[in-house]
């Protein structure tokens, strides 16, 4: 469970996240969407600890981010859009290193991820040979190592091929069924709509709306618009939100 209370992130000339409160429950995949500059990345960076200066509270289960920083680091996995990996390790070594840092025995999980993401041919190559998509797969696999209770994905699936996307979706659904909390940020509305059970919309740093799938179906039936159209009109005319 992730609980965010009155989160406000200020940059010198702009308020990136403005008093956002939200609770992410176990067993649900949440989608986080919003236009560019909506504050999605800042929100996620604050969750994972990449931004330390903010107002408000962030809790992972009963642990506060400001007080129990080191404990929290063991409670979540994180995959960013542009992963910074170590170029002189192989993909296999990198995943084993992460497993050792997290102090989990992940041999069988790493083998499964290797086949799920189609990494067989490159697993023993240095990461500096990998394409962007391959790096994203390794980063995503690293976030899954040890099956952390919370998973935070920031545009992490953009470079995936269709087979890896399909396998990733199955992995996330299995994790959600087992009670993990998953937050998935993406620009691709179709992906969010198909993968997530609840969708959070941020705009100009504010929480604009929070929908369950049932509510989205209801909106579609009521307005005759698909989710993309509704999203655009909502961002342009926020008063239409729930």
């Amino acid at each position, binding site marked *: 469970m992730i609980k965010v209370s009155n989160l406000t992130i200020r940059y010198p000339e702009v308020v990136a996240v403005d008093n956002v409160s939200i609770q992410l429950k176990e067993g649900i995949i949440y989608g986080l969407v919003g236009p560019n500059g909506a504050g999605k990345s800042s929100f996620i960076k604050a969750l*994972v*600890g*990449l931004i*330390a200066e903010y107002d408000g509270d962030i809790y992972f289960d009963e642990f506060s981010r400001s007080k129990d*920083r*080191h404990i929290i*680091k*063991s409670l979540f996995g*994180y995959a*960013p859009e542009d*992963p*910074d*990996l*170590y*170029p*002189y*390790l*192989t993909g*296999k*070594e990198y995943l*084993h*290193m*992460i497993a*050792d*840092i*997290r*102090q989990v025995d992940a041999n069988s999980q790493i083998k499964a991820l290797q086949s799920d993401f189609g990494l067989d041919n490159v697993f023993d190559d*240095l990461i*500096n*040979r990998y394409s962007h998509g391959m790096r994203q797969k390794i980063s995503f696999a690293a976030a899954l190592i040890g099956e952390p209770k919370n998973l935070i994905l920031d545009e992490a699936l953009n470079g995936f091929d269709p087979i890896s996307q399909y396998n990733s979706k199955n992995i996330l659904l299995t994790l959600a069924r087992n009670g993990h909390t998953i937050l998935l940020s993406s620009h691709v509305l179709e992906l969010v709509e198909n993968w997530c059970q609840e969708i959070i919309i941020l705009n100009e740093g504010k929480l604009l709306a929070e929908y369950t799938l049932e509510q989205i179906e209801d909106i579609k039936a009521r307005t005759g618009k698909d989710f993309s159209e509704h999203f655009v009109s909502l961002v342009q005319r926020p008063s239409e939100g729930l």
Partner: protein
Amino acid sequence: MNAILKYHVRQLFNYWHHLKFRIRAEIIILFIIFYSFFTDKLVFYFNQILDYQDTSLTGLSTIVLHLLMLIVILSTPFIYFNLFPRQKGLTNLSLYPLKKSEALTTLMIYFVKYQIIIILIATPVFTALMLSTGPLMLLYILFLLCSSLFLSGLMVLILASKYLSRSRIFYQYFLFFFLYFVSFAIVYWTTYLFFYYTILVIFCGWIVLLRYWNARWQSWDHVLNRYRPVVQKSTQNMSKLTYFQFPSAIPKTVRPLFIKEILSHIRNKNYMRLKIISLFIYLIIMILVDIFYHEYFTTAISLLTILLIWEHYSHQFNEKYVMKETRFFIKVLPIKFYQYSLSKFFSEFLYIALILFVVLILTLIHGIALFKILNILGIITIFSLFVLYIITLIRIIFYDNPRVAGYAYHFLIIFTVVMSFSFYLVGPIVTLFIIIYLHFISNRQFAR
């Protein structure tokens, strides 16, 4: 103003305004302190030369001019081969159909950028000269600056007047500048050696070279392609040692990070080559010192080893040799400060151990008394530990900005050396406090 120049200048202003007020104030204060400190020391030194050694004003100014020219000449190939290919702005702009003047401006900006920094560093020397020798030197320096401006302007005009194919424009300029400066270096030193240096000969040499290269460089397509600067690709060949072959005796808490460091060193051929070549050159110098300057061997081995360690570890901040640390690694993964710092420290200590072993062998061969050997090894070890610890801390503090980390490293080493030699007791104490402070800040990177 040329648009390219305008945007490059604006970048500088934006960068300055983007810094916090505290950091800006710190930069200005540090600059003033260093500027005053070095100027003060140099004024004293120049006055001594002028008062006691009967050195004429012209002689002194010639020394300074030579120093400046030497800096410019030596830095040119380094800028051409090492720094040009890394300029992202240059690479990006070279993809656009630039006008001749824009291409030239871009090139000049990146070419002069590093030399300006070097010349800025030399400004305390000029200030000290002016203070020591009075307004005559000021006039002399003004003359030098005006001559340089005139000659640079002349060069720019001649280049801009030529038609150049746009696709190759950057590489043509590269080659021209490189050949020109190498030739100029040869002419400069030749005239110095054989004609005892006259401004007139240098000036004529400059013009002749300009005409000579300008007439030839454009037709050298094959040469252009051959000498086109490229960023060296990192190695693709992997060493046989893998993550899984390290002994299990390494403590579990530091094991993954330690192995990551060792593998990153071993598999980066540039870094391994640097280590081997540095040690090889050091060995040759020490053997030569032992043969030709036998009586200075003890001093030389201490100083040169210290220099080797200082120089070698400055490459820790060059991404060609050591990759910058990932933010994700420091902030997101459950890693503690002690795990990270110990793994960095011990992975690099292996090379220090090798250097110490080489020093031990050299001193034993030279036949120095055991007490003295221990003394030398002790000094080198203390300096090495200091350097390694400083590197570890600075790399954590500036984990995402190797360039600033590099400046901080050199600053700290120079600061420590100057303070320790100038104020025997206060210097080390101040340094100790700085280390404690850095320790605190770097620890905080993991805690926040």
